[in-house]
């Protein structure tokens, strides 16, 4: 049983928010590069009937950056532990887990470790491996990823925040830090770089078959990060997986087509 103290520390560390009126809990887990605000277009549709839990991964959004440990979070296991910690701290059971992008894989890993916390997983744009491999098309070559990392290095939050410190020098500029915490998608650049590496370098194909909790793959049309073939791979290799292809295009259907996304999630939750 978790003590109040542990619970409070987890809630603070991951900026956990609990809203809504139902008994059934839906835990929304944001993807790489964002924070819980990414769900702002969809959560209102659920708060009347469900208890909605939102959080930021350690190092992201308004989490406690001081608790970020580069070693722990150099593997997806570190982020998986964040999910399990939250479930334990809030004494959650049989929840619906909705994960976007890398979070869908993190959700699978958490559900393999502690199936009792979960009743259903919704995987939005999942990819167990981004790099192409033998007999597998992830969609990316190593050089594409290097391109992204380089891009993030020089352009993480825009020209002035990326170039100015480089040109002026790494002087103490508190106003930059303020900008970071006040802006969405504004994880500390070092954390973002680490998160990008762990996200895009991971290979979790072998984990899919270990999942015992039932799941839904929400596949976008025309998603460069998680192409249709990858979604189909997940569906094929994950026991108990349903597959729905959305009309929504791009990688963020919960942002670009919230209504379609909401109805897909809702109808899956309501199925028996």
């Amino acid at each position, binding site marked *: 049983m978790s003590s109040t103290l542990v619970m409070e520390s987890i809630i603070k560390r991951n900026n956990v928010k609990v809203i809504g009126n139902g008994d059934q809990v839906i835990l929304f887990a944001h993807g790489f*590069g*964002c924070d819980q605000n990414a769900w702002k277009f969809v959560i209102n549709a659920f708060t009347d009937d469900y208890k909605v839990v939102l959080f930021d991964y350690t190092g992201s959004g308004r989490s406690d950056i001081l608790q970020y440990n580069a070693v722990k979070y150099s593997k997806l296991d570190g982020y998986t532990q964040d999910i399990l910690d939250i479930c334990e701290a809030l004494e959650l059971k049989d929840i619906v887990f909705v994960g976007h992008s890398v979070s869908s894989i993190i959700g699978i890993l958490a559900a393999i470790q502690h199936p009792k916390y979960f009743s259903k997983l919704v995987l939005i744009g999942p990819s167990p491996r981004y790099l192409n491999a033998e007999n597998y098309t992830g969609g990316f070559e190593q050089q594409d990823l290097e*391109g992204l990392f380089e*891009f993030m290095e020089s352009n993480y939050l825009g020209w002035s925040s990326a170039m100015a410190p480089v040109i002026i020098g790494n002087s103490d500029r508190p106003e930059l830090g303020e900008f970071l915490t006040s802006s969405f*998608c504004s994880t500390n650049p070092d954390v973002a770089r680490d998160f990008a590496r762990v996200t895009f370098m991971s290979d979790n194909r072998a984990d899919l078959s270990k999942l015992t909790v039932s799941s839904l793959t929400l596949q976008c049309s025309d998603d460069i990060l998680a192409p249709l073939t990858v979604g189909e791979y997940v569906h094929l290799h994950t026991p108990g997986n349903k597959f729905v292809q959305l009309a929504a295009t791009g990688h963020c259907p919960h942002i670009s087509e919230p*209504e379609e996304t909401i109805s897909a999630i809702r109808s899956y939750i309501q199925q028996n």
Partner: protein
Amino acid sequence: MEGQAIIDLEELYQQAPCGYFSLSPSGNIIKINQTLLGWLGYELNELHGKKFSGLLSKGGQMHFEMFFWPMAAVNRGVRELSYEVLKKDGVILPVLLNASAKLDEANRLLAINVVLTDITERKTFEKELLLSKKTSEREQKRLQFMADLVPEIIWTATPDGYVDYVNARFCQYFDCNGQDTRVSFIMSKVHPDDRRALSRDWRESLISGESFEKRIRLIDKAGIYEWHLLKAALFLDEEGNLTNWFGSCANINEHVQDMKKKDEFINIASHELKTPITSLKALLQLLDRMKGDLTNKMAPGLIEKSNRNVNRISELVTDLLSASQFNDGQLRLNKTEVNLAELIGDYVHHIRIDQKYEIITEGEGVTVIADEGRIEQVLSNLITNAIKYAPESNVIRIRLTRTLEFALVEIIDEGPGITPEKLPHLFDRYYQVSNTGSLYSGLGLGLYICAEIIKKHRGEIGAKSVLGEGSTFWFTLPFNPSIARRQS
């Protein structure tokens, strides 16, 4: 009203000096202006309805999907993201991207409006800036290297006097790290007698901005005070603004010590000269009273004494002249064949007459090429020293030895000996073995002159001594001076 006639909004949109386009919630281009089409080299129908991210590199697309899109929608806008857009001909167009999201009443995303600015030139400047930044960093490192290499302490201070940089020498000298630059720390390293004047003068310079120069004693890590010349000047930039004090601290301890020795020497020399002059003055007064009557029975004695004093003065002046000649490098040798045994024999014969010492000469006849007068000066000095400093020694031995390469002359006394710590300094200028100067008079120049003469002959000179048993002063003269100076 007139303005409306001139400014056509549609034309402004199409021909604006920046690229405009709008994206549907799914990321497709729904409107794009002529400027942007012109930049990219596409026709309207080639891009309309297409994904904008298709114009980016793969890394750019990923960034666009994971950062731009959520940020634009959730934050309702994006500022100054730098992307590289691919033109139709494959050339890269660097752009800055600003965007704002258009939402309906229910906060649903309707469209994202984007402004692109061509930053090709700016990118070039950025590169130049980075390059010049690197250059200046390199320059700074070079200066740092130089500053750490010089043997002086180098430092800078803010216009109000706080030391903000010190070189490696500072850290070595005081055995501290570069952060120990507080005024209190530095002051603790200054000799207590110098602190007050230093603080006062430094404050005055800070107020006046005048260059600063002061001699102070600084304590090193071994706890020894050494004299330093502290200099500082205020550096003004091109606009004449105060920037920094630049300062150095040169170790002038040796110089200061030399000056001190010189002062002491002048003091000694004056006294040495004064004694015979005073005697001479008295003798002349006595002679003067005789009114030219040289038949007075006292006259010969007085004249003889006067002569001795004049000789003494002459000797002293000769020594002084020799010393200053060596100092200026003016010593000229008048070399001839010299039979050392004969030279020693003659000299010894000359002093044997009026001395109670037994002087024993040993060894065979050796002929060298040397300046006879100067070698005699050396012999005279060494033998006189033996007599003077070893008064109880009844025997003084002069031994002449011949080796393959050089002749060795040793002057051996049976006096009290010389303490080991004094041995290495015997041949220094202005050095006197004993400070109890009343017992032994002289300028202390003798051994220095000997050393200079022997060096000039490319020989070596030295001394060894055992306390209570006696001392040996020796020198060598090479037979072939051009290959000399490598003997033991």
